[in-house]
């Protein structure tokens, strides 16, 4: 297994390289240049030249690419003051990109982690219930909910929630992560409820469908009939035999949703003004803050690769038929 993981990571390198090349090209082919906002009458040509040199924009594209990627792959480099400079500096704030990103990670992790956990806890029992009592009222309700929930765009749902609960009923805060001046976790939790709810509802819709169809698939198998023929009760058959098999694809789904932790964050964080990574990505694109944008894309790509790898590893762990 260890060799498999190493092999996969090595295979990932060309992919990361491809991602780097593509994003670098996009960023540099795009019309406009990062120093455009400095082209005002107040800035002298020499100052412009200095800026160009400082940002390394006077070197050729391949040179820029290699110097960037070389540094990028060593994020642990620090300068004398302990700043992580390898990822460059943000064009918007001047702060090291590394800092800007890492300070946002906890907020996003909190939001997404809670949403993921809630989704798993709710969707799995619902899916199992719908499968076991197929065609019953419960099944129909769940299926309808899942289908509609899947169709509802998350931002619309978020807005609806805000409207109902925050504006009309005034139960929850409108946006942000903290009320003014407060830092206690309870306050954060209160702020978290609506965004987590909006994310969870949408995810549950998708996951419960998966769980249901996986369960149905498993329950049609011959070994379920064997289990019944042995004299096991329905409950025992479901718990001991069906569930373990039905959860296998779900477990891999877990790994595959890791990348979406990032992109799902963009929209939700935008609506709820949640100060997380997604928000950062969003604003950096608007501001044409290329160093941050590039770092964001690379991180996103890396998370996809890691997510896939985790999914495959989990798959091998739960299914004895898979051996790497």
């Amino acid at each position, binding site marked *: 297994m260890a060799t498999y993981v190493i092999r996969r990571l090595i295979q990932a390198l060309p992919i990361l390289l491809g991602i780097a090349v593509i994003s670098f090209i996009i960023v540099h082919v795009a019309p406009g240049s990062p120093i455009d906002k400095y082209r005002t009458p107040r800035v002298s040509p020499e100052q412009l030249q200095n800026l160009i040199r400082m940002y390394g924009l006077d070197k050729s594209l391949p040179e820029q690419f290699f110097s960037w990627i070389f540094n990028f792959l060593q994020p642990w480099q620090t300068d004398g003051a302990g700043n992580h400079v390898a990822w460059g500096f943000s064009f918007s704030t001047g702060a090291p990109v590394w800092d800007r990103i890492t300070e946002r990670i906890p907020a996003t992790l909190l939001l997404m982690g809670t949403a993921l956990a809630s989704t798993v806890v709710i969707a799995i029992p619902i899916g199992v219930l719908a499968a076991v009592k197929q065609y019953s009222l419960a099944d129909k309700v769940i299926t309808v909910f899942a289908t509609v929930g899947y169709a*509802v*765009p998350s931002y619309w749902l978020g807005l609806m929630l805000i409207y109902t609960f925050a504006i009309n009923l005034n139960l929850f805060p409108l946006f942000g992560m903290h009320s003014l001046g407060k830092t206690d976790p309870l306050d954060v939790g209160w702020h978290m409820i609506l965004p987590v709810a909006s994310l969870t509802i949408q995810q549950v819709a998708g996951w419960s469908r998966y769980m249901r169809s996986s369960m149905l698939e498993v329950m049609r198998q011959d070994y379920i009939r064997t289990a019944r023929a042995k004299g096991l009760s329905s409950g025992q058959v479901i718990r001991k035999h069906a569930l373990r098999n039905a959860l296998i694809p779900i477990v891999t789904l877990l790994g595959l949703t890791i990348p979406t932790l990032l992109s799902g964050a963009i929209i939700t964080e935008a609506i709820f003004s949640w100060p997380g990574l997604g928000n950062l990505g969003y604003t950096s694109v608007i501001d044409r803050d290329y160093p941050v944008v590039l770092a964001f894309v690379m991180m996103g790509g890396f998370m996809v690769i890691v997510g896939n790898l985790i999914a495959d590893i989990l798959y091998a762990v739960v299914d004895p038929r898979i051996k790497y």
Partner: protein
Amino acid sequence: MDTTVNPSLAQRLPGEIDEVDLIPVRTYWQMVRRRFLRNRLAVVAFLLLVVLIALALIVPTLTGEMYRKTSLIKPYAGVELAAPLGYDDIGQNIFLRLMKALQTSLFIGFAAVSIIFTVGVSVGAIAGYFGGWVDNILMRVVDVVLSLPSLFLVIMLVAFFGGGNVWVIVFAIGLTGWTTAARLVRATFLSLREADFVQAAQALGASRFRIITRHMLPSALAPILVAVTLGVADSVVTEAALSFLGFGISPPEASLGNMMTNAINYMIRQPLLIVYPGVTLILIVLAASFLGDGLRDALDPRQRAEG
């Protein structure tokens, strides 16, 4: 009685019909159509989509620029005959605007899907048919594109290359979304490659292009069709998300996404403003989902996960 061959067993009594003759013969596509039509949900979904597309095509064409006309006396005016949904904050006719938004969103959806279809099917077919190193390289490319955070990438592309430009949006969505279709087609082709009828065609001397297009593609059609249907829904949702975030279509042009953005500001005064585009979007996705499910069931009922 001995058990050697009884000649009468092989004979047919006069006037007798063999059971086999009584089974009616139907072509594959006839059966597909029958199964599809029996699925009422899918049929309703299909009709709904037809209605939506018709509205999207007819209404804006008839009314032209009227969706943009603002008016100072009409803000928040209620429902009237010419404006079944009322007027918004700057006096625009909500219904007309919605129809134009529907047109834009659907157009982007379908256009993006055609890119997805063309690129995805070509890449998948070539990779699946030739296999070997061709397959390897193409799959690496697919891996790279897949690993890119798609929504963010679309945002990047649109923001950098010109927001508001419909074609930029179409290409951005199309170029990031073809990977699933490619994989589907490749998987089908890989398994079809060894199929007997393909080898027979090769033995007859058919050219590779002919084999791919006339023999293998029709079998791969089923999953492609389903993926395309769902792809339209996906693209429409992505476009709406883009416009919602401010990167896509901007006012005075109408898109389901930017109608929602605008509506946020007036949530207290005119809460319904956000409901209309949202519900329309939901209807599109629902209809596409059910249609996709129905197509999949009709094309291969064995694939049905539910009983």
